[in-house]
């Protein structure tokens, strides 16, 4: 009986919304003298409105008791409903017994209260953010996001099971919404269980039985209007529950055959095919140099220098002089406004001299520098010793020698120096920087030329 009364809420709630808003409309239309209507007619509207609001409150109270809502979720809606009912009753009484000029403001307050209550109620039924489908779609990603490479050594719960719960269960059984007084966002909460008091874990636990119920059953989980578990997810959750439902073992510590690992991999593949994954980009300095001087960039490009942002929307820029025929000083001075933006500079085969190196030494964000087959010397190369991010340096085919290259041993990020066809004899610098001097040979073998 209580259940039935509770469910009439879904019917009754529409009456006060319609009738009270009608009352509000008449009130203001009368104020602006658009219509004439007797005071008693308005009283009737407010009376029925107030009465239906009170019934809606009562039925709503029963509904929250009998249904899976928690107090926290319904709190605001509950009190907003009571405020609406009280306001409706008082406006009815003001209308009948007094002649207050403030009545129209009371009506406005009532209308706002109706709107707020209605919205809060709607959010309960349809979910937060229902009114804005764009944000809804973004938030409601029901595809698990896995971050696991080595499946046999992955944590069963943290790496495999939790992402599934996170995508399919936690939006209703988590910190934001606690339907059925159950949270599933940590092992402790899962073990604590929910309102029904059933044990969730194990082969016959509530998780398994609720999943196994036919979708038409009210107790089936996830509810039929929500995204269901995929077949793979189903199999893997059952496997986890059947094998003890451990929270801290690795995959290969519980009963996982190679076939089953393939099964897990399949689940991860399928879901990652649907979810957007992060890209792996090349290293860029952390500190953004701010917007680039577009005019300077256009001039640079006009000089046949390939100048491209290091990725769309990046303020860093990569330069390649491959199409430049004459590297004169003027051309190089065009780079001055963007020195801090350059992360990659390719000057291969150009007439770069130690004079140019002065500009280059001011490029504080330089990561990769190609100076192969240029005219630089030890003197020029030593100017690079204060470029903090320099990671790659190519001095192939130059006059650079051990003395010049040794001056760079304190560069923190420098990993490799290419010194093919140079005077360099060192294999590495004291700080562990590897020098690749090339001149590789593959010893000839008879099989290179003899055919069978």
């Amino acid at each position: 009986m209580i259940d039935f009364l509770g469910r009439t809420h879904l019917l009754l709630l529409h009456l006060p919304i319609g009738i009270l808003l009608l009352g509000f409309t008449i009130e203001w239309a009368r104020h602006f003298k658009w219509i004439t209507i007797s005071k008693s007619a308005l009283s009737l509207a407010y009376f029925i409105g107030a009465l239906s609001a009170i019934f809606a409150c009562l039925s709503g109270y029963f509904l929250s008791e009998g249904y899976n809502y928690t107090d926290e979720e319904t709190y605001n809606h509950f009190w907003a409903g009571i405020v609406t009912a009280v306001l409706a009753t008082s406006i009815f009484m003001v209308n009948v017994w007094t002649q207050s000029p403030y009545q129209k403001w009371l009506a406005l307050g009532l209308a706002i209260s109706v709107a707020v209550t209605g919205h809060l109620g709607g959010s309960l039924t349809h979910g937060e953010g229902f009114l804005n489908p764009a944000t809804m779609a973004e938030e409601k990603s029901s595809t698990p996001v896995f971050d696991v490479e080595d499946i046999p050594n992955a944590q069963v719960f943290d790496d495999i099971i939790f992402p599934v719960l996170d995508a399919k269960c936690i939006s209703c059984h988590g910190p934001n919404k606690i339907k059925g007084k159950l949270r599933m966002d940590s092992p402790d909460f899962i073990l604590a269980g929910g309102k029904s008091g059933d044990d969730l874990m194990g082969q016959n636990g509530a998780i398994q039985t609720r999943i196994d119920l036919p979708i038409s059953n009210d107790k089936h989980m996830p509810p039929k209007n929500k995204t269901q578990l995929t077949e793979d997810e189903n199999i893997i959750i059952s496997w986890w529950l059947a094998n003890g439902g451990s929270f801290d073992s690795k995959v290969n510590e519980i009963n996982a055959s190679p076939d089953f690992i393939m099964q897990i991999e399949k689940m991860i593949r399928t879901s990652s095919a649907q979810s957007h994954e992060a890209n792996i980009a090349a290293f860029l300095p952390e500190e953004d140099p701010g917007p680039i001087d577009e005019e300077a960039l256009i001039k640079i490009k006009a000089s046949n220098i390939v100048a491209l942002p290091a990725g769309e929307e990046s303020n860093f820029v990569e330069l390649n002089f491959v199409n430049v025929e004459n590297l004169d000083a003027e051309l190089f001075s065009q780079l001055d406004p963007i020195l801090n933006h350059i992360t990659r500079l390719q000057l291969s085969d150009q007439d770069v001299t130690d004079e140019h190196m002065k500009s280059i030494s001011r490029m504080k964000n330089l990561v990769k520098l190609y100076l192969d087959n240029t005219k630089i010397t030890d003197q020029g190369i030593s100017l690079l010793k204060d470029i903090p991010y320099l990671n790659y340096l190519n001095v192939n085919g130059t006059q650079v020698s051990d003395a010049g290259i040794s001056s760079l041993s304190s560069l923190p990020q420098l990993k490799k120096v290419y010194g093919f066809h140079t005077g360099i004899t060192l294999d590495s610098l004291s700080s562990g920087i590897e020098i690749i001097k090339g001149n590789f040979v593959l010893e000839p073998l008879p099989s290179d030329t003899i055919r069978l």
Partner: protein
Amino acid sequence: MKYNIEKLWREHSLKNAELNSRRVFLKNAGISLGALALGSFLPGCKTPGMQEKALDLNPLMPKSPHFAAKAKSVIYIHMAGAPSQFELFDFKPELNKLNGMDCPPSLLAGKKFAFIRGIPKMLGNQAQFEQVGDSGAWVSENLPHFKKVVDEVSFLRGIHTDQFNHAPAQIMMHSGSAIIGRPSLGSWATYGLGSENQNLPGFVVLTSGGVNPDAGKQVWGSGFLPSVYQGVQCRSSGDPVLFLNNPENTTRDIRKLSINAINDVNKLTYDEFKDPETVSRISQYEMAFRMQMSVPEVMDISSEPESIHKLYGTEPGKESFANNALLARKLVEKGVRFVQLFDWGWDAHGVSRDTSLGIGLKNKCRETDKPVAALLLDLKQRGLLDETLVIWGGEFGRTPMQENRNGVSQVYAGRDHHPNAFTMWMAGGGIKQGESHGETDEIGYEPTRDKKSIHDIHATILNQLGFDHEQFTHEFQGRRFRLTDVEGRVIKSIIT
């Protein structure tokens, strides 16, 4: 007769007067104005399948990828015909124990093979294997030089495809679909990145082995992308690009004038019809003109020092895989984005001496082993391997069973096509060194760990070039297309 002429003349005068009436003029004016207005309401009705952004008069202008890229260029070595993983990289002691036994029916149930019929015999590794390098990777005796560079590469040992015939599998491998019509990898790369060197094509194709790949030029085609993005096939002997030279008695100046005149007309045509193929044609003329100077220079390997020829085993003037490998390095050095090498002749079915695992395959290895190792070393010493992604692979794998074409056992050892499991490797361009990803079962029949698809490889290649493979699209026939279609996952564990 006279009557007829008079009647015609009267009719003509009447019609003439009607057509020149004020009413007709105003009516026509209304229609024309309406049509003019309509034209501006329908700006989309130009040519389908071309994004506004790409309608630049230089479609090969260099462009930024989505994010900072680890690789600037790609050298893709495709061994056409599908090399046998069992004679190169996939060492299977268990399979060797089963050598010569009947294949268990469980492996055959529901499977369809290109040539195997009835019950074939299992075939163990037809080469000696050893673990080499710091990474301890298993490599066969067929690749003695590769053993020295094994620590540069990341192996992908659990690759699978869904095609078991050469042509569709090659098209799948290069365009992400077994059905022709999609752009190839290199076309996507040049479409997204343009060409850094404005005097060279962004996408160059070199073939060796005497025969073009089975799938034909489709494997470097541009599909629905403008044709300026298709691969430019160069030859390693004779004229590098056919028909590039000026005709006799035509000087470069005259050639320039005639190309300018043709392009001016083409530009007018483009302004009128907005067909992107016109832009392609304009830039192809200009590119060809610039290539007349730059290509013979870059394609000439005779100027390389003797030490380099020794390293690669190259002989100038000859058509060989070795020459192509050296050319690939030279092209990448000059800023070419994508170099595609095809080497034909790896289809070791065992039906003849040349297709046997013991002779034909070994000869193919001898032709290519040194150049591949040399390419990696040469790229490394020039500092190019850092930002050049090198990929090696075939279009599918080969069976752990000996092929018995039409149910008859063969004299030579050979293997049938096997799409379920094979090995590829990648190196340089932000790929980890000495990594091995994926495993196959004891007989190398199916992947047991980290099974990866062709789409995963494509996603990884695009990631290295700075593209989010899910966002890198081209709109064609009302739909946005991706290289990876609706699949693909970046193989993160082999990326530095």
